């Protein structure tokens, strides 16, 4: 299929390209930008005047729930939701049943994604067998099966010696390790940020130090082992400053933040709504400001959805008894536009943190729109609106933004030159 996208403003932060120009696609790849190549006969013409063309978003942390949690989501349902949010590439978490700690599970996920997926899926492997925090998973075998990085989620290692050895082993093979720093003991009994809001509601607190103590330890071990490390879902201002200092020292560390952490704070807890129950928790206004600053400066180079869809029952209980997580991948671009509208980020920076920034952190060949690259792209209307919840595709309705009118509207999402999502 030969496609001409005509009249769009092409914004590619990776190459700092930002001007109106036509895009020509052939064989799933960008064939040309600007002038039509000679002999290019257009089979499909997309009139994109007034729209902005950007690389497809790269979401480096989304739980697709398959295999094992079909009531919450499937690869088919959640990648369709992803496409609606402008996502063309995503990293799926290993918190499945069974856990993604064997090549068989990785292959199952990749097969499903190939057959039914509306986005490119890169699995994250379990760092330890069964995510138990002791015996290492077969990391190199998993890498060869397609895992791009390894994480133990919020489950800590049994002790620092095992963690040290795990990092050294990963460093031997230049594997990327993902940390979600949270000290288990300091967080114990907590379900919300330890602050005035949780205290007033009698909700057990997770102190800021649960993150910063673990993060400090992790950074020292990263330095010792030389492993390539990515810190995922940072929630505290001080955590972001610790990462900035490590980067200044020359450590190979990157970081991401959940999109909702840049928008929500612990003030949302006041009516006990389980929609705001997330792990790690929503933090204070000062933390949110610190995270926003770190995203602006590039210390945090990626914004991820941290999409966690749930069935209705999982959220139907008193706050503490509910399962944590927000389903938000299909709002990724409109939520980013709300940050742009609010003046938190300028448009090129927002798009960079959702495309080439995360792609670099996970070393994915994605997130840029140069000639010869795969035609993974989004056409969106910056002046349009998205009513969150209309035509909801995710199996998880656990999204506090549902009902909100957000700025920006995804019109086309293209994966490999094919339309994976389209709306007027």
């Amino acid at each position, binding site marked *: 299929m030969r496609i001409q996208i005509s009249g769009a403003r092409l914004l590619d932060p990776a190459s700092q390209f930002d001007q109106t120009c036509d895009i020509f696609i052939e064989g799933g790849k960008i064939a040309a930008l600007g002038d039509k190549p000679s002999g290019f006969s257009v089979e499909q013409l997309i009139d994109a005047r007034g729209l902005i063309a950007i690389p497809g978003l790269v979401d480096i942390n989304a739980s697709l729930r398959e295999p094992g949690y079909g009531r919450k989501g499937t690869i088919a349902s959640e990648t369709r939701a992803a496409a609606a949010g402008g996502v063309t590439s995503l990293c799926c978490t290993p918190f499945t049943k069974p856990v993604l700690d064997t090549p068989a599970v990785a292959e199952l996920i990749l097969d499903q994604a190939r057959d039914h997926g509306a986005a490119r899926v890169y699995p994250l492997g379990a760092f330890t067998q069964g995510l138990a925090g002791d015996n290492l998973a077969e990391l190199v075998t998993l890498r060869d099966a397609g895992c791009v990085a390894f994480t133990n989620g919020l489950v800590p290692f049994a002790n620092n010696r095992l963690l040290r050895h795990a990092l050294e082993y990963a460093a031997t093979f230049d594997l990327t390790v993902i940390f979600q720093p949270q000290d288990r003991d300091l967080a114990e009994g907590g379900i919300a940020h*330890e602050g*005035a809001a949780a205290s*007033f509601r*009698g*909700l057990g607190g997770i102190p800021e130090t649960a993150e910063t103590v673990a993060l400090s330890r992790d950074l020292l071990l990263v330095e010792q082992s030389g492993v390539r490390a990515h810190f995922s879902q940072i929630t505290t201002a001080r955590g972001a400053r610790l990462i900035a200092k490590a980067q200044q020292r020359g450590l190979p560390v990157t970081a991401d933040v959940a999109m909702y952490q840049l928008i929500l704070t612990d003030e949302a807890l*006041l009516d006990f709504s389980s929609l705001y129950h997330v792990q790690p928790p929503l933090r204070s206004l000062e933390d949110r400001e610190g995270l926003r600053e770190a995203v602006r400066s590039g210390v945090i180079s990626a914004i991820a959805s941290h999409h966690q869809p749930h069935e209705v029952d999982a959220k139907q209980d*008193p*706050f*503490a008894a509910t399962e944590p997580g927000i389903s938000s991948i299909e709002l990724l671009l409109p939520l980013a536009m709300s940050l742009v509208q609010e003046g938190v980020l300028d448009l090129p920076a927002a798009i960079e943190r959702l495309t080439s920034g995360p792609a670099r952190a996970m070393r994915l060949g994605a997130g840029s729109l140069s000639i010869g690259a795969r035609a993974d792209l989004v056409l969106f209307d910056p002046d349009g609106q998205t009513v969150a919840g209309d035509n909801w595709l995710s199996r998880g309705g656990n999204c506090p933004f549902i009902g909100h009118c957000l700025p920006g509207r995804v019109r086309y999402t293209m994966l490999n030159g094919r339309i994976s999502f389209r709306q007027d």
Partner: protein
Amino acid sequence: MTPACPLQLNDHGRLRHFLSLDGLPRELLTEILDTADSFLEVGARAVKKVPLMRGMTVCNVFFENSTRTRTTFELAAKRLSADVITLNVSTSSTSKGETLTDTLRTLEAMAADMFVMRHADSGAAHFVAEHVSPNVAIINGGDGRHAHPTQGMLDMLTIRRHKGDFSQLKVAIVGDILHSRVARSNMIALKTLGCPDIRVIAPKTLLPVGLEQYGVNVYHNIEQGLKDVDVVIMLRLQRERMRSGLLPSESEFYRLFGLSEQRVALAHPEAIVMHPGPINRGVEIDSSVADSPRAMILNQVTYGIAVRMAVLSMTMSGQNEQRQLDAEKSAQQEAR
């Protein structure tokens, strides 16, 4: 931080649930106290019943153990002529895997008009009022660390009956504030009723963050904290606080924060001593203080029945009023 809680008020600003003291205006708290005062007379009569809730079914649902709260709620409902059933759910359905929602819907199907609920999770009563049974009145009998609003009101009744005007009082709350729903409800009630000097006395390990939002003064030294106070509210210290490393031992706690006669002597000569019970003699309070005339611990139990009668009857009438308002509204809509 005082967001109104419209969930517990009907369209006319009357109680339809009783979930938390947060967001309730002073006039409403005063009305509860006035109503409870009038019910105290009922309790003193030979025939202790009034027919305010005749034909109504009150369901006591306790997901957590309780003796005095459960029995005083039961008595309060019976003195209002309601039919009462009490379920200790901690030992029944939920251990069979039934969800909270399903347990309460089952009870709702038995045409209960009111649930009195205690649950270990903060926000459980809010959850039920919002999601399970909007047309059944929900009375919070204690939810996690969050609120114990009837205890808060019976403490206020005790203070008002023995000390009078809140605007002249110094009140100290001593002990495990962090884990205490009683302390949270008391701090809110005292502030709403205009108490100018609310003190909390505890080591840092037993104080929650964000205390400034309650407008209280924090003391780590009980001798300083008790100076000239009119009311001392002692809190129960649970054994597990030692196990989780918040305190070295019961005896050191008693040495530093226990209420002895010498320490009570630092308070105002007419000061009263309160405790939500059950008390730990020799841990947070000395027997000589607990058994002294200034101790209000047993009066609190008596007042607790009157306060619960007030809350049950006011909430029931607010809930009935709302049902009528809703019926009128839907009739109007149909007429259109």
